[in-house]
């Protein structure tokens, strides 16, 4: 009776015994036998990489991966012309493909990639879509102006633009005191963090929506920007009508400079995709869209982080700090974001692009 042994399911399988190369009758079999060891080694390395055990690979294995991959690729090219062993051919096809995914896969994990992203990848992507940022900005400015002018001409417009749930006490005809109340400093931070998280969830969804709507040639994105900004314009008119405009702007600017920048960038990313779809230039529509989509995705990811930041600002300083402090925080954030996008990640003159 055999003694029971515990098998380690993760242990490396021993390589099967090699038949004698010289004994093989067919030339294609000798070709296979001579290289089979390398193929199996490559398969083992690739399997470990696929399972996420990259840290268990020896340095030697990592160094050899590209070499083994190229050898297998050239073996495949030769085998296609000289061998009719379907099993070998299919195996090689699969092996080369799997190795190709590993050798030409994403270069780093999520965390390392994020590091590079914040140290310049994001800023470069933002600078690359400057034209679309201008377009989105024009749409937003037009939205504010439209909201203001519409409400100034006919107050009924206010109720059409501002949804009831947001209006609260902020309605035309409210007294100056009532409006000032909505801008007042809250007496504690109670309930604010949950409010911030909800706001973040809502704003992030709106931003992603603005980007994703770019898919329809960017037009819905621009409409969305105009509509949202019209709401802002209407509110600005309301506060101006009672002489509270500076306080309103300060109240808004705390988080607004961050949040509006994020919405601006998200809209610009959407417009970028839509514009490249409509005017792909020399490239095919599909490849132009893909290129624009990847660039826009970078901008978008940054927007999500900006929104987390905006939500924190929205919940705490906006409700707790006085008008001057609010305006200062808002202006500071505006300058900080601008500096980030303009200055970070520039290639030094003379240095070659990575």
């Amino acid at each position, binding site marked *: 009776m055999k003694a029971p042994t515990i098998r380690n399911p993760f242990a490396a399988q021993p390589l099967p015994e090699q*038949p004698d190369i010289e*004994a*093989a*009758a*067919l*030339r294609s*079999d000798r070709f*296979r*036998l001579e290289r*089979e060891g390398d193929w*199996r080694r490559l398969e083992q390395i690739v399997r470990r990489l696929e399972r*996420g055990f990259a840290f268990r690979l020896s340095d030697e294995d990592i160094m050899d991966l590209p070499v083994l991959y190229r050898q297998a*690729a050239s073996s*495949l090219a030769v085998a296609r*012309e000289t*061998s*009719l*062993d*379907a*099993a*070998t051919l299919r*195996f090689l096809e*699969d*092996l*080369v493909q799997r190795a*190709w*995914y590993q050798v*030409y*896969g*994403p*270069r*780093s*994990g*999520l965390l390392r*990639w994020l590091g590079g992203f914040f140290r310049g990848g994001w800023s470069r992507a933002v600078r690359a879509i400057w034209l679309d940022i201008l377009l989105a900005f024009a749409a937003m400015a037009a939205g504010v102006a439209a909201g203001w002018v519409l409400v100034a001409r006919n107050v009924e417009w206010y109720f059409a633009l501002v949804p009831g749930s947001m209006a609260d006490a902020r309605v035309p005809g409210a007294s100056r005191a009532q409006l000032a109340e909505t801008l007042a400093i809250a007496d504690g931070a*109670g*309930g*604010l*963090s*949950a409010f911030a*998280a*909800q706001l973040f969830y809502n704003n*992030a*969804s709106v931003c*992603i*929506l603005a980007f*994703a709507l770019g*898919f329809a040639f960017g037009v819905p994105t621009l409409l969305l920007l105009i509509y949202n900004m019209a709401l802002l314009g209407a509110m600005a008119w309301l506060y101006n009508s009672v002489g509270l405009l500076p306080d309103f702007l300060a109240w808004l600017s705390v988080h607004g400079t961050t949040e509006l920048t994020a919405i601006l960038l998200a809209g610009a990313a959407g417009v970028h*995709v839509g514009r490249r779809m409509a005017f792909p230039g020399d490239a095919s529509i*599909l*490849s132009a*869209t*893909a*290129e624009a*989509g990847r*660039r826009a*995705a*970078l901008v*978008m*990811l940054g927007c999500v982080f900006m929104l987390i930041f905006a939500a924190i600002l929205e919940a705490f300083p906006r409700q707790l700090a006085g008008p001057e402090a609010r305006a200062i925080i808002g202006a500071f954030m505006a300058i900080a974001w601008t500096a980030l996008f303009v200055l970070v990640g520039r290639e030094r003159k003379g240095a070659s692009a990575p």
Partner: protein
Amino acid sequence: MSAARKSLDAKRQRQIVTPEGVPLGVTLATRGSRLIALILDYVIMFVGLFLIALALLLVGINLGQLDALGTGAGEFLVVVFFIVLFLAFNGYFIFFEMGPRGATLGKRAVGIRVAARPQGQSGERLTAEAIIARNLLRQIEIFLPLTFFSTAGEAGSGPAWLVGSLWFAVFMLFPFFNRDALRAGDVVAGTWVVEAPRRKLAEALSLRQESAPAAEAAYRFGPEELEVYGEYELQSLERVLRDGDDETLAAVHAAIVRKIGWQAGSGDERAFLESFYTALRAKLEGDMRFGKRKADKHAEVDRGGPPLR
């Protein structure tokens, strides 16, 4: 039926060229398998979130009542919960598809993965940006119509459910209206979903005889006997030998013997077929080296034409 299936399979074949210049065949994933993968992923996420909520409940935290508590700790947990929610719905796909297998858990289960769609000819590197882009688009494909549905009950929302279903239908049916079965996110990111290769190296048939002494009995075939078949028959024979079904072996044996005009008894079909396989392969591979290929038994020998692949 099988012919129709074959032509469907052939429709899913695509070719990419690696930077080394080796063409590789990839098979697009079927739309059905992608749908199953998507459903699996959502089941995994919802079950995961449910388990988290349940675990919190077990240690005495009821998420539904945290807001009412009004304490700092409760609020903190609500914040954490919202962030987890956001990460689960957006980060799950991105994290897994950026991993070495390029597939979420659901995709792994059905054996498919995300790959970069070649722009032009050559295969490209799958980048992190592409994965982020294709997953951000899920927001309009799935979550936006859901928000339409959620407002459907409210007064004055009108035909919101109709808009929601239409929207949903447009994006769900998107993969049926292009050749590569791309969804909107794939178009924007420049990716496609393919079957993940995973095949083991099978033992070489032509090497078996040396190790098996029973096969020593020598069958010798002349050129005119090997002339009758081509590569297609060789591959069918290989398949039959690997399956190793005795009845099929006998039938194939009878067919070959009749075709080459031999008189042979029964009982040694396997050894006969293995030697015939080796001899036929030797002959066809020998011809290949001189640039002559024969696709099947009906084909004239193709001299120096373009290779079959």
